[in-house]
């Protein structure tokens, strides 16, 4: 099966400034792709190009097999997009607005009402469907924006920070909705909230200074490299004692009798070993590589090398 989105060597320049530099990636059905990056990294520009709001300087984009630049109407028909600011007409009611969006996406007359009521149901808008959008709270407006993006059941859904302004329960609902939609659609989720990506996405991509610096499956990412463990032992054990044992590659003291250890053995072997030493083990926890750690490593290291290059040049 061909991929839902395929992006080839996409670049965007604003004058001399290069906002997006030669990125390529793919999205298939069933993927929920987390798209991350610090502010000004080119996230929004990329999303705007994918949705036809911005023309690329170079590169190709095809959506559901249709070229966005040569055949924009066919490509956009497969697209649902929630921009950073939900594009809502404040003077309309929720139902009027969604009906307009349905017509805009060329749904047939009999489908319009059923599509609207499904979207209203899914985004929990039943209580406000006859109210003016202007009078809704930020959370509800955000949900109308999401309803608009999934209304015509497009194969590709692009959501730019969908959970901004929602309360914790709504966030859980929307995440559940994204997971359900992700089973049959391809979703790109642009966000700053890293735990959200960990909770919802199955792939993650990090963009920094216009370049894709990371692209992996979430499972792969969480299990990469040697693992770290946090342990607590009885007070009379000190760091030097532990360092003498070959099973630990490094040992760090966190506080008094808490240690951060790194080892090539897995958790079962380690606990077995520690218990046999009779060190009075009271706490044992695996420390996963968190997305946050990877994000900070990648975006900061890039900046550091850049700063270095600049000082070198100076």
């Amino acid at each position, binding site marked *: 099966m061909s991929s839902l989105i395929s992006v080839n060597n996409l670049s965007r320049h604003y004058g001399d400034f290069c906002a997006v530099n030669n990125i390529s990636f793919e999205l298939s059905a069933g993927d929920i792709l987390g798209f991350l990056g610090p502010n000004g990294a080119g996230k929004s520009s990329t999303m705007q190009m994918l949705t036809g709001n911005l023309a690329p300087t170079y590169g190709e984009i095809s959506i559901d097999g249709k070229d966005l630049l040569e055949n*924009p109407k066919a490509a956009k028909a497969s697209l649902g997009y929630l921009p950073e600011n939900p*594009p809502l*007409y404040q003077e309309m009611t929720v139902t009027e607005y969604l009906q307009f*969006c349905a017509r805009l*996406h060329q749904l047939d007359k009999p489908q319009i009402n059923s599509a609207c009521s499904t979207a209203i149901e899914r985004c929990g808008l039943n209580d406000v469907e006859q109210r003016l959008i202007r009078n809704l709270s930020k959370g509800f407006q955000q949900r109308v924006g999401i309803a608009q993006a999934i209304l015509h059941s497009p194969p590709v859904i692009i959501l730019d920070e969908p959970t901004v302004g929602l309360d914790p329960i709504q966030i859980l609902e929307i995440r559940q909705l994204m997971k359900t939609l992700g089973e049959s659609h391809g979703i790109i989720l642009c966000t700053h909230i890293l735990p959200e990506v960990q909770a919802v996405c199955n792939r993650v991509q990090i963009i920094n200074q216009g370049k894709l610096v990371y692209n992996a499956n979430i499972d792969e990412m969480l299990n990469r490299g040697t693992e770290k463990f946090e342990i607590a032992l009885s007070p009379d054990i000190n760091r030097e004692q532990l360092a003498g044992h070959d099973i630990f590659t490094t040992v760090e003291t966190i506080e008094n009798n808490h240690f951060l250890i790194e080892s090539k053995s897995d958790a079962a072997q380690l606990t077995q070993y520690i218990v046999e030493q009779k060190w009075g083990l009271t706490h044992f926890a695996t420390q996963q590589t968190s997305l946050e750690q990877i994000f900070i490593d990648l975006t900061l290291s890039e900046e550091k090398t850049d700063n270095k290059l600049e000082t070198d040049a100076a």
Partner: protein
Amino acid sequence: MPHDSGTPDMIFVIAKREFRSMFLSPMAWVILAVIQIILAWSFFTSIDYFFNIQSELATLTNAPGVTDLVAMPLFEVASIILLMVMPLLTMRLISEEKRNKTISLLLSAPISISEIVIGKYLGLLFFISVILMLLVAMPLSLAVGTELDLTRLFSGAFGLFLTLAAFSAAGLYMSSLTDNPMIAAISTFGLLLFLWLLNNSTASDGGTNVLNYLSLHTHFAPLLRGILNTKDIAYFLLFIVGFIVMAIRQLETQRLQS
């Protein structure tokens, strides 16, 4: 750059929303009310004037009728008032979409920029038709008591429609240039007033003819006198198409540069 002319369906989806949204805000109602009150007043003073000079008219051969003395001055006044009002109607067409970022809904939907712009223009033409119907109803009501020159009346109303359509096209273009409705309104007003007054230039050199030709008023006046000239109609059509194409190009360019 390839422009497809667009499917009528999508144009009507946009036009319908545009027309309805005007009536969802108090703006359209206020404008209709204000125009109607002022023009009704002007209509009554014309009728009053007509009654006063009626006895003198009776002595003349080939005297001007009620259509010349009441309906045409009304259309003349309407064109001036609407020159001031149209910028208020056109200012938010595109600039407000840009300011509220709702334009991205349209740009990411399966609809071309030409369809968006033509749809919006069409929505405005519907609104102009409403203004015009309310306006024409006033002289038409005189038909109860007297005989009207309906062809003159039609020609005048058609001229006024073309003039308003031209105002709208210019306003639509100005609205595509900025994301601030106020700036769009002021620059539209400036442009229209300039084009309207162009024929008042008293310079006696060869340039006068060109300036005269470019003026909107030069082409509106014959229609008011009942002269339907293809030259004038062609001027209005060129004016309208020119500004619409410029608005489409403007939005395409913004997508490239933004």
